[in-house]
Structures are given as structure tokens and as C-alpha cells.
């Protein structure tokens, strides 16, 4: 549906995006995460046509967007920091967005406005950050777009509205739409995304499904035992060893797990627990590597 091929963006000497490539398919939610200043917004702005790539191509439905300028009509976008026209009401902005996209379903509009609990009769300059976001979100959902791009969509929303948003995303997925979700709320990305790409310093450092990503990180094991495990502590495959009321905590690289488990056989364990790595752990690993 949407393909980025070796996309780069240079601002003078600063290389904000370096050789970024990924593909989005219909019916999937693609998580796009990275530290602040990594190049997420720049990449997104190239996709929506606000910036001209320095190198590389963007293909929409296998056609280069430079030749097919109308691709933007099939994209719905929610910006990271929503600013609206102060003297217009929320309703007027939503109506404009609908008219611009040629979308005419008033029932759906009323339903969404109610779901998101937005008072559309107030002027945008009186809206809080969350309400402005709601306007942008509702406007995005009221379209026949094929690709939906969300940049930090839920930062100002309360948990109830966050859930409404999540439900709408699943709705989109079920209708075979494509969603590009850029968010710092890793639990949200982990919950919704089918595939994830991690960008840092302008480059994609990792991409794949959660399962793929889990393989390249460390797994946490929690052991309870009365034995002296000094020998275990100092093994080279043990990382971040600590001890608390739950027992001994240690992190093992995926590749080393067979060796670790063999090692454990020599001990009398009272309990052995493991948790699959959270996206946060994966993310922090890359973030810490940078330091």
C-alpha cells in the first residue's frame, strides 16, 4: 500500500532521515517508535508531502507519489501537535475536513462526536489540548482514506478516550485499512501494532513483529533458591543481576538461553519465573545503547 524506499532527508549538514525503508500493507497497524528527535516526524512529513525527500522514493499503491499527486486524498493524517483555527468552532473544522475529503456520512459524524464526547459548538481557541486532538481524530476517522497516519494521537486524552481511539483503530484494521501509528506510549503500540519499526538518529535500527523483536533482546528470569549462586552470578551470559523480595533477577540474551538453562540444572530451585520482554525493554535497550 505504502512503501518507503531508501528515503533520506538532509537539512543542510543535518541528516535527519537516513536511508529509511519500510512497507505498509492493507489491514495492518504499523508502529513507528523512536526517541525524541529520531526522525519520526520528518519521515511522516515526507509521506504527507510537506517535505521534499533529499533522496529516495515513496510509493503509494506501487506508484511514485511524485507522479501521482492525488495519493494524498487517500491518506488521513493527525498531527503531533494540533493547532486549529481559533475563531472557528470544532464543528466547523470537522465539517471543513469532511467537505475537503468529499465525505458525507452525517450519521457516522454524529456517532463519533458522541463517542469522543466533544462539544462541537465551542470555538477552537477555548479548547484544551485534548479537545483539539479529538477534533483532529474525529476528522481523520471521517474519511474514505486507505492509509491513516497518527502522530502521538493520544497524548492529551483521558484513559476512556484512549480506549475509544483503540477501538476505532481496530475497526479500521477490520476494514482492511492501513494504520501508521507513531507514539511514545509503548504499551499502546505494543497492544495495537502488528509490526513495529524503531528509528534512531534517522535510521531504522530494527523492524519486525513483536515476536521478531523479542528474539533480539534479553529475557528476564526470576529465580528463588536457597543455594549459593555466586558462580551463576559471574557467568558472562548473565546481565543486570539483582536481588529483591521476589528472588534473584537476571537478564539473559536470547541466544544464551539454552546455555543458561543447562547451567540452572545444578541448582535446587524453589521457583523459576520468566516474562516475555515488553516493548519498553526492547526500546530501552536501544536507547541505552545510544548513550
Amino acid at each position, binding site marked *: 500500500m505504502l512503501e518507503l524506499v531508501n528515503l533520506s532527508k538532509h537539512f*543542510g549538514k543535518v541528516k535527519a532521515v537516513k536511508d529509511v525503508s519500510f512497507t505498509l500493507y492493507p489491514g495492518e497497524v504499523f508502529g513507528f517508535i523512536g526517541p525524541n528527535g529520531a526522525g519520526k516526524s520528518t519521515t511522516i*512529513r515526507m509521506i*504527507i*508531502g*510537506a*517535505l*521534499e525527500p533529499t533522496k529516495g522514493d515513496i510509493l503509494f499503491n506501487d506508484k511514485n507519489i511524485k507522479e501521482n*499527486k*492525488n495519493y*494524498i*486524498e487517500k*491518506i*488521513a*493524517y493527525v*498531527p503531533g*501537535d*494540533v*493547532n*486549529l*483555527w*481559533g*475563531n*472557528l468552532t470544532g464543528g*466547523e473544522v470537522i*465539517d*471543513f*475536513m469532511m*467537505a*475537503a*475529503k468529499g465525505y458525507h456520512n452525517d450519521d457516522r459524524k454524529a456517532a463519533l462526536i458522541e463517542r469522543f464526547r466533544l462539544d462541537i459548538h465551542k470555538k477552537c481557541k477555548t479548547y484544551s489540548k485534548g479537545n483539539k486532538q479529538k477534533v*483532529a481524530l474525529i476528522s481523520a476517522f471521517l474519511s474514505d482514506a486507505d492509509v491513516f497516519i497518527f502522530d502521538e494521537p493520544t497524548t492529551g486524552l483521558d484513559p476512556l478516550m484512549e480506549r475509544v481511539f483503540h477501538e476505532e483503530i481496530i475497526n479500521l484494521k477490520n476494514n482492511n485499512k492501513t494504520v501508521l501509528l507513531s507514539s511514545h506510549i509503548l504499551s499502546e503500540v505494543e497492544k495495537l501494532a502488528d509490526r513495529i519499526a524503531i528509528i534512531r538518529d534517522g535510521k531504522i535500527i530494527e523492524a519486525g513483529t513483536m515476536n521478531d523483536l523479542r528474539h533480539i533482546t534479553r529475557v528476564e528470569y526470576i529465580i528463588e533458591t536457597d543455594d549459593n549462586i555466586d558462580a551463576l552470578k559471574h557467568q558472562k551470559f548473565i546481565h543486570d543481576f539483582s536481588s529483591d523480595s521476589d528472588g534473584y533477577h537476571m537478564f539473559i540474551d536470547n541466544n544464551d538461553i539454552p546455555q543458561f538453562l543447562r547451567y540452572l540444572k545444578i541448582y535446587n530451585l524453589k521457583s523459576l519465573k520468566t516474562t516475555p520482554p515488553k516493548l519498553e525493554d526492547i526500546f530501552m535497550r536501544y536507547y541505552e545503547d545510544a548513550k
Partner: protein
Amino acid sequence: MTYFRLIGRNVRFQVFLWLLILCGISLSIPSVFNTLYGTEEERLGMKMTVDNPAMVALIGPIPEGDYTSPVMFAHQMLLIMAIFHGLFNILIANGIGRKAEEEGLTEYILTTGTKKSTIISSQIMLGIIINILVCFILVVGLQLINVEGLSLPGNLYYALGLSLFGLSFFVLTLSFGQLFQSADLTFGLTLTVLLALYLYRAMTDVVDTRFSVISPYHWLSRIEAYGIESSGLWLMPFSIVILLVALSYVLFYKRDLGSGYFNIDKKPKERKISSYFRLAFINSKVLMMSWIVGLFIVGLSYGSIFGDLDQVIGQNDMLKAAFEGQDGTMFFINLLFIISALIATVPALMVNGRFLIEEKSGRLEMMNAATLNNRISLTTAYLIHWFYANLVGILSYLLTLVGMYLASINVTGLELTEVDYIKGLINYSAAMVFIIGVSSLLIGIYARLHIFVWIYLAYIFLVNYLGSLIDLNENFLKLSPFYYLSDVPIEGLDELAVVIVTSLGIVMMLIGLICIRKRNLL
């Protein structure tokens, strides 16, 4: 709804208000002039009054032919109104152009499928529609006024002149908005062009009008709206608008959104800021410096014509008689003293107004909550802004006077002494403190009321400007602090008036202080 209607709706009220005020002023003048200068003799007297370098600098050269009411109206109002129409257009254009882009709105619109070409065309179209409205209102309004000589062609020339002038600055702002990355810079530069062209013309009109040709203000003078030989030819140079339109179009199309063609990327040096006193200074530094320097230059340009003033009035028996023995030169210098004080009040009000920006953005509450022992309280911030307002006002005024003094230092026969300048400074600074007091009082009562101090300032300006030309009803003048102060340098300094006016200013500030501690922050 289209993008065009979207941005139109957003500025609807603002535009309505400006149109009401600007066209209202233009339309109210012809009858006033006609009533007060009903006879040809009176008008001839007025013509003589304005036939001197100081007035030529202010309103342009005397048009040929009879000085009828309409001719007088166009001659005296066109250039001043042009400045305001220019300002109006700059504000609207910057708002929908670079400012909207800075806020990410233009990018947002782009994602709805609106094409770049539509965006820039809509912006330009909005400028055209607004100025067509200006033209229409003025023509129709003028036609309806029952004053002899307000012919249709004349009215058209007046209205077209102002609307084309306004449109030029609208499109210029859009073009500058393409070049520069910040909305503030764009506004500052276009405003500078607006005022610089006026000042340039002021100087060249006095020296040799052939040099004035570069300035659009001069084109307006040369149209001679109601004269015998009105020349629509002088509307032609405004076709520069077409060039500017093409320029904005091309520049917008080619660039990345959010960027400009001139990107200024200076690395700022680290500063140690540990008090609001210093913070407020740093935030207002550029504003204060530029106005102080600007006003010094204004002072210089005023002072440079003192020499000619003296000559012209000295030689003219009729003018001498008109002033009934009073010194005409001194009269004009007094007018300049007053106008300079009013202009110096502008940066003062801007600096005081910054308090409201701190309030609205939430930074005021943040500072208040973040500091120990209430170190940066509402009172602190309020007083500091008031202090800097007075500082920049008085300093700017001082430098205007210094400029006038330096430029006229070699003029012989001028009865203006250094002491007169000092008296002027003290006298009219009192008026400034008063107006700043009004500003602080309004801030204290309710943030949104502050706009009225600008209306008040404009009112005082108009009243003094018109008051010098026509016999305005005294009651209008009573609302201005200048009424109560003596007319330096014509009269001596009235110390009591100075003390009272200044004290009133301070008292108003104090009342505002009490109010602000009680009211809800916005």
C-alpha cells in the same frame, strides 16, 4: 467549505472591525471639513497653513488647482490612512501566511488533499476580496455623502488608491513570509518597509519630489483624487502587485513547508537569568532597542526640517497673521513634541502588554508556582512590566528629542533652547506615564480590556492631529491628558499639571495592581 472559506471565516470578525474603523474614519472626514471650512477663504487659509515643509513631510505636496473640501480631504487623509490600511493588510496576511504555517495549520490543510496551488491562491484571493470590500465601502460611502465636489471619479481614485496600496502590502507580507522562517520576523520586516517608505517620502517630498517616485505613498499623492487633472496614471505603478502575486506563488510552491529561503541558524550563547527583572528585559530587548533607535531617526528627520520651517513662516505674512502673532514655528514644534510622545508610547504599551502574553500562555502561573517565597509573584511581574514600559517610553522620547536637537543644531534664528527640550521631555513624559497607567489599569481589571488602551491612544492621536487642523470641540480634547498639560515650548512648563497627570498615571497603575491580585488569571 473550502480552504478559502475556512480562512475567511477565521478572520471575519477581525476584518469587519478594521473595515468599520478605517472606512469609518475616511468617511467621516469630508463632511467635517466641509462644515468647518465652508468658504473658499477659509480653505485658502488652510492651504497656506499646510504649504510648508513640515506639513509636506507629513501629508505630501500641495495638489494643483482649487483647494476644495474634497481636495483637502484627499490631500490630508490619504497618506495617513494608507499607513493604517497597510498595517491592517500586513496583520491579516501574516496571520494566514507564515503564522499559520508556523502552527502547522498549512501542513494540516495539505493532508486534506488541498493542493499547494489552491492554498496560495486562496490566501491571495482573500487579500483581493478584503481590499475590494474596502474599495466598495469607500466608493459607496463617499457617493452617499452630500458634499460638493465628491465626484464619482474622485471617489474611485481615493478608494482604489487605498485598496491597491493595502493589497500591495498584503501580497508583500505573503512574499516575505515565503522568504523568512519566523512570523515575527516577517511582520517586523514588512512593517519596517511600510514605515521606511513613508519616512523616505517625507524627506524627499521636502527636498525634491522627483526622488519620491520610488515610494508608493507618493503615487497616492500624485493621483490627486479630486483635482482638475486627476491622474489614474498614478494607479499604474500599483501593478507591482501582479509581480508580488507571481512571486509569492512561485516561492510557496517550490519550498518545503515550515522552511524559509533565508534560514538564520545562530547558536545562542548561554545566559544566566535568575530574576524576572532580567528575564523580562531579555524578552523585550529587541523590541525596546529597535524602537529607541527608530525614534532617534524619526527625531533626526523632524529636526532636519526645522530650518525650512522657520524660513517659510517667517516670510509669509498671511501665516504670521493666521497665528495671530504667535510663533508658527513653535506651534509646529509643539505638535511634533506631542506626536513624538504619542509614538514613543507605542513601544511602552507593547512592553506592558507582554504581561498579558505571559498570563495567557500560562507562564505567569508557572513562574509563580515554581519559585520559593513567592519570588515571582503577580505583583512582581506587573510592576516590572510597568517599569520597563515607562523606561522604554521615556528613553524613546528622549532620543527623539535628542535627534531633533542634533539635526537642527545649526539652524539660526530658532528660538528653541536646550531648556525647552528638557521642559518638553518632562511635560510630555507625564502624558506617557498617564497613558501607561491606563494600560496597567485595564490589565489589572481584565486582560481582554487592554485593547482599549490602543483605541484610546489612536483617539488621542487623531484628536491632536485633527485638532491642529480644524477647530475640534473642546470636549473631545478633554479626554486626552495633553489637554491639561501646557503647550511646551509655546508656553512655559506647568509643574502642577505635570505632577497631577503623572500622579494620576501612578494611581491608575496602583488601582490596577489591587485589581489584578483579586481577579482570575486567564
